[in-house]
């Protein structure tokens, strides 16, 4: 027993001291970190739903849905968090839907590992094409000129797969979530 204490007291003392040190750091920085994470998400949501003041977080069919309200407390739209297969790794995005669920009001990719310079254009203004598309029909990503009346977006040149994968994720999540929005209104 004495031998055990002799050999290990330092490890135990250091363990306790370090744990306190970490707990201290955590307590002092936690608020800031949470604020940073919330800000990143809020910025993405603000891009896909035009007017947001407050949000309620719901879970619909396994997906997180943010019910966005404007200043007067009226329904301003829905932001749906979705994850799906991409060309390289998973792509995570938020898709915005109009209050009645009929239109896509925008999409924003938050996390992806698509090829820099090609596939990762999905993060940028390419995604603006989704604004105003019909949410009741499938969206299609096609090569060349896109016809918006047919619910089409133009795929990125050299990154057709990435574009198609984004479209698939959006279609899939809208199809599953949209019918169930009514009951959360």
């Amino acid at each position, binding site marked *: 027993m004495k031998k055990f204490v002799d050999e290990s007291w330092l490890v135990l003392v250091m363990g306790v001291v370090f744990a306190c040190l*970490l707990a201290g*750091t*955590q307590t002092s920085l936690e608020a800031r970190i949470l604020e940073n994470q919330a800000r990143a998400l809020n910025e993405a949501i603000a891009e896909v739903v035009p007017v947001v003041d407050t949000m309620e977080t719901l879970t619909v069919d396994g997906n997180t849905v943010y019910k966005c309200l404007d200043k007067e407390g009226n329904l301003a739209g829905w932001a749906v968090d979705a994850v799906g297969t991409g*060309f*390289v*790794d998973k792509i995570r995005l938020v898709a915005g839907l109009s209050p009645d669920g009929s239109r896509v009001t925008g999409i924003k990719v938050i996390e992806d590992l698509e090829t820099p310079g090609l596939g990762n254009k999905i993060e940028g203004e390419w995604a603006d094409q989704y604004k105003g598309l019909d949410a009741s029909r499938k969206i299609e990503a096609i090569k060349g000129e896109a016809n918006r009346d047919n619910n089409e977006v133009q795929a990125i040149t050299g990154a057709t797969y990435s574009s198609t994968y984004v479209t698939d994720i959006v279609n899939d999540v809208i199809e599953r979530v949209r019918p169930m929005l009514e009951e959360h209104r």
Partner: protein
Amino acid sequence: MSIGVLVGIFLSVALVNNLVLAGFLGICPFLGVSRKVDMAFGMGCAVTFVITISGVVTWLIVHAILTPIGNAIGNPGALYFLKYVAFIMVIASMVQLVEMYLKKFFPPLYTAFGVFLPLITTNCAILGACLYIDMKPETQNLLNAAVYAFGGGLGFMLAITIMAGIREHVRFSDVPKCLQGAGITLLVAGILALAFTGFTGIGK
């Protein structure tokens, strides 16, 4: 939960996002223990073994210890600052346990890859895989996490064995003096990584 999802996770981590060639994990053993194919294969087996066990155990640490205690005091993430310390301690002790277990019950296996076990604690592929399991949305249930860890280990084994195969041949070629050793190994790894980028897109 379909079998397709599991296959997807497996292929993604073993080939497309290979821990070594696309994720830059476990580079030290990849460069250091890849001179001979049989050594490389032994190292690969040892890593696969430990990575699978550690992946499962660290998953349990997060989901069965840290999160429930956090929940009990009202904030699920309250103890997450202990994650890294807990992970590395678990890996270190897993390695020790596996070493002792093999030595006692499977002596042939121990002689085959036991020598690599002590080196594995500081192999970042192991800690890296555990961290990714913790971060990725698709590995939040135990079975997926286990498949991810196992696939990651096999991917490492594949990469290091191929590398050793190439290096056995490089030995006979005329390499410029300043590139001998690490230089040429890194260049070969670059070309190998280039080949592995060809796997992107098979995840569907």
